[in-house]
């Protein structure tokens, strides 16, 4: 409709204008929610209108402001950011529908502030996705942290206070303490912080400095939740579920791993990292996080906590892909950003739907619940299978490419790690569904069915799902997981140019 550059700028402007609209209409909840929905739809259309241009190889850039002499805040769209923005903006629509159902279903207070912060967080996410240099990335990264703090502490009770402290402490601590010095150091070494294909550090830094810088970046980007700085993510689960779903399964955490990929591809450069071997340690830290977080997830009885640890483990896949520094592995990492987003948001939607319908948070209390909420649990099953990586679901592709990458890098041990991790995924996700369908509800004992007879535990009368606005979103995202299985090829083709120098 407009020039490509205008659309890029609009991606930031639309959610911000939406935030103002939400503030103005705060006294009329129905209009306010309409504003949220309209904003999210407009943003999504806007983001997708950039897509064809990027597929044709365009690189639209927008100068926002000259923050420092020689360093401006700039937006520049490249395939990876395009992918991330498309995922985040399309899921925002579904999540907005879900938010309405959840926030109203649970009678949450301070809803206007909730929607405003949400819109600002989305604007910051777009900024991260489209950032043209490290400084821009950092600015929006911090805006994202600060705008999600009120969302995490929405309940304003002692738990929220504690969770908020951990959340802010780790995210701000790592970003100011490590990420920012790394950026400034990069600037003093290379004289630029622009994202350039092939990296900017090659020739400016020796192997030792590269290793230190990589450490600063990887632990400075706390949102990627590498162990041992992952604690903020479980802490963030005190937030209302829509926040956990979109922000802490998609926008915030993906902003973290997306930044990791950006730094590896455009600052260090894949080839430079392979030459120096500086990323060797990162592979092992990621592999450790992958397994350890899965094991911790097994021990969690709180559904959201289990999902949080599962997210930590799944994020490590992306870091693993980045650290292997082969084109297949990086493609796997990029695919994982997309696939995991749809899978995990489905699971969180289901967790929230269960909470809204029956106010249960512990997995052990969810026995037999599948008979009451079959749609929710079928969606949960599909999301789980996608995360485990079984065809015909989207998640299988990211695992497939990571395996190829491991083979390409001659890292047989990593293939075993990936294998074990998939088994662990099965172990902590599928029992939830199995118990929900095959066990009797809590407090009921089923009479044994004699051999030769059949009895169905299913009955239409028992069905008591959450409100429509809470059930529809997980169904949509679960279907999307199936559709994505067939869309893997276009996505890979979109990001291919950045992998082949």
């Amino acid at each position, binding site marked *: 409709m407009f020039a490509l550059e205008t659309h890029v700028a609009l991606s930031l402007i639309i959610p911000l204008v939406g935030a103002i609209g939400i503030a103005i209409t705060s006294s009329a909840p129905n209009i306010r929610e309409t504003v949220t929905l309209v904003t999210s739809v407009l943003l999504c259309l806007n983001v997708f209108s950039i897509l064809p241009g990027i597929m044709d190889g365009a690189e639209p850039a927008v100068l926002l402001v000259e923050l420092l*002499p020689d360093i401006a805040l700039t937006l520049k769209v490249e395939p990876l950011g395009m992918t991330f923005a498309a995922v985040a903006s399309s899921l925002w629509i579904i999540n907005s529908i879900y938010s309405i159902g959840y926030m109203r279903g649970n009678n949450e207070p301070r809803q206007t502030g909730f929607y405003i912060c949400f819109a600002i967080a989305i604007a910051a996410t777009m900024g991260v996705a489209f950032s043209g240099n490290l400084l821009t990335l950092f600015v929006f990264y911090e805006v994202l942290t600060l705008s999600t703090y009120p969302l995490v502490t929405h309940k304003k009770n002692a738990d929220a206070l504690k969770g908020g402290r951990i959340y802010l402490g780790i995210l701000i601590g790592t970003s*100011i303490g490590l990420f920012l010095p790394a950026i400034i150091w990069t600037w003093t070494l290379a004289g630029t912080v622009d994202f350039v294909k092939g990296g900017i550090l090659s020739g400016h830094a020796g192997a030792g400095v590269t290793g230190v810088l990589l450490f600063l970046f990887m632990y400075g980007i706390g949102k990627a939740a590498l162990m041992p700085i992952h604690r903020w993510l479980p802490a963030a689960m005190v937030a209302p579920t829509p926040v956990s779903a979109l922000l802490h399964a998609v926008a915030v955490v993906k902003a973290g791993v997306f930044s990791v990929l950006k730094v590896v591809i455009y600052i260090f450069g894949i080839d430079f990292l392979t030459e120096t071997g500086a990323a060797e340690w990162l592979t092992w830290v990621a592999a450790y996080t992958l397994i350890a977080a899965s094991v911790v997830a097994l021990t969690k009885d709180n559904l959201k906590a289990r999902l949080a640890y599962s997210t930590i483990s799944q994020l490590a896949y992306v870091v693993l892909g980045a650290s292997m520094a082969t084109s297949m592995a990086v493609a796997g990492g990029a695919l994982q950003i997309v696939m995991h987003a749809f899978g995990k948001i489905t699971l969180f939607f289901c967790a929230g739907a269960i909470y809204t319908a029956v106010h249960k948070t512990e997995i052990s209390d969810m026995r037999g619940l599948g008979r009451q909420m079959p749609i929710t649990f079928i969606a949960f099953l599909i999301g789980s299978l996608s995360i485990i990586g079984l065809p015909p679901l989207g998640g299988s592709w990211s695992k497939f490419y990571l395996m190829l990458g491991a083979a390409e890098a001659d890292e047989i041990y990593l293939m075993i790690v990936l294998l074990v991790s998939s088994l662990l995924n099965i172990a902590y996700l599928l029992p939830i569904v199995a118990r929900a369908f095959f066990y009797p509800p809590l407090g009921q004992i089923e009479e044994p069915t004699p051999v030769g007879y059949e009895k169905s535990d299913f009955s239409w009368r028992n069905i008591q799902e959450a409100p429509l606005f809470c059930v529809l979103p997980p169904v949509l995202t679960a279907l999307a997981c199936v559709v994505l299985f067939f869309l893997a090829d276009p996505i890979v083709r979109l990001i291919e140019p950045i992998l082949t120098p």
Partner: protein
Amino acid sequence: MAPDMLSMSSQFPILVAIIPLMAAPVCALLRGRNAPWAFTTIASAFAFYVSLQLLLTVASSGPISYELGGWAPPWGIEYVVDLLSGFLLVLISGISTGVLLFARESVVKEIPTSQLGLFFAAYLLALTGMLGICITGDAFNVFVFLEIMSLSSYALIAMGERTDKRALTAAFQYLIIGTVGATFYLIGVGLIYMMTGTLNIADIAARFPEIEGTRPILAAAGFIVIGLAIKLALFPFHVWLPNSYTYAPSIITAFFAGTATKVGVYLLIRFIFTVFGVNYSFTGLELTDILLPLAVLGFLSMSAVAIYQTNIKRLLAYSSVAQLGYMILGLALASESGLTASIVHIFNHAIVKTGLFLSVGCMFYVVGSNYLKDLDGIGRRMPITTFGFVLGGLGLIGVPLTPGFISKWYLVVAALEKGSFIGYGLVALLMVSSLLAVIYIWRVVEVAYFRDPPDGAEKEEAPMSLLVPTWLFILGSFYFGIETSFSVGMAKAAAAFLMGGA
């Protein structure tokens, strides 16, 4: 006398200092609630206008020299405006004017109406002193203005006694310590006069290389640096500052936090870079070895101390001492980027801290207390004010898009340029200090938003006349955090000028 000497604009250098000076006695005679305030505001605004004009002239056509009474230097007193002093003039008069906009309703609550004339007269004298220090090119004249500023500020701080009697002891403590500092400075200037026979700063600087190895000059430099360190509250000479800031009337704290200590930093930069010269200061005197550890100890220990304060003004005061550490660190690095960081932080911190103290002033206006325990749930009682405080606090932490980030960027660049073990260590310590800032700001945030307001407390915002100036500074801080061409451009040019002049 050149013909254009008669035009108004050629008299601007003297007008900057003389307007508030002449306005002060007139103001003392004014009675009523509004007249002294209005008169002071107009005088300050005029000084601001003149300062801006001066800075524009300097930026386009180089330093201005003005001969007081037509006596040529070095016999007469010379007023000099270069980029650095022009920058400071604009900053000081601008902050003063902004704070005065806030003053009308705030002062009525804290100062007896009968004393308003005298209060504003003292305010004008303090302003005169600060502007005079920046503009004069004469080392003894600096002392005169320093005393004008100090004496009036003792009186202003003591005026906080109506809300808290401890203001009197705070003022007395400041009087003793401040006088020691001023005396040290005077002894130093005396020694320099003895060796050079001149008080004109440019003249001293010109003759300095011949005598710089001598012992009296070593003593003079010692006296001057320590005297100024006391005046600018460099750790460990800072003890007077938290007390004074805590008990002074709200607008005085806001005004001094943005300006008084900055003038001290200005003088230190002036002496180290213009008078002593970079070579003598950093190779002869090895000032880095003295100032750098003090600066680092200052910002670390004072940020840590700020965390444990129960009075919000005191908390911000300790934070000020910490931030002064950053400025001293920048100049102690003795590089152009370090000096840039130092100067840009003078500007940035002034705006941020003034905004913060003004929002605390709003809270005091409504709640009548500065203690955190009385501010429970203030975020719900005064949402607009508190949100302003949070935004200002982000500036103090150095979140991007705030001016604090710009300062930190340059400080870290300067530290990295220094390289070696010390440089990297400094980067780490700077980051630790910003994280301490997160903690002390977030303590306030948690009190404001996570505690329930006391029973019976109703939602009540400060009046518009307080909110608007407060938000002017808060939004201004964001403006200068995003559009940095003025602050960074001026600081860079001034730093290049000072380093090049060596």
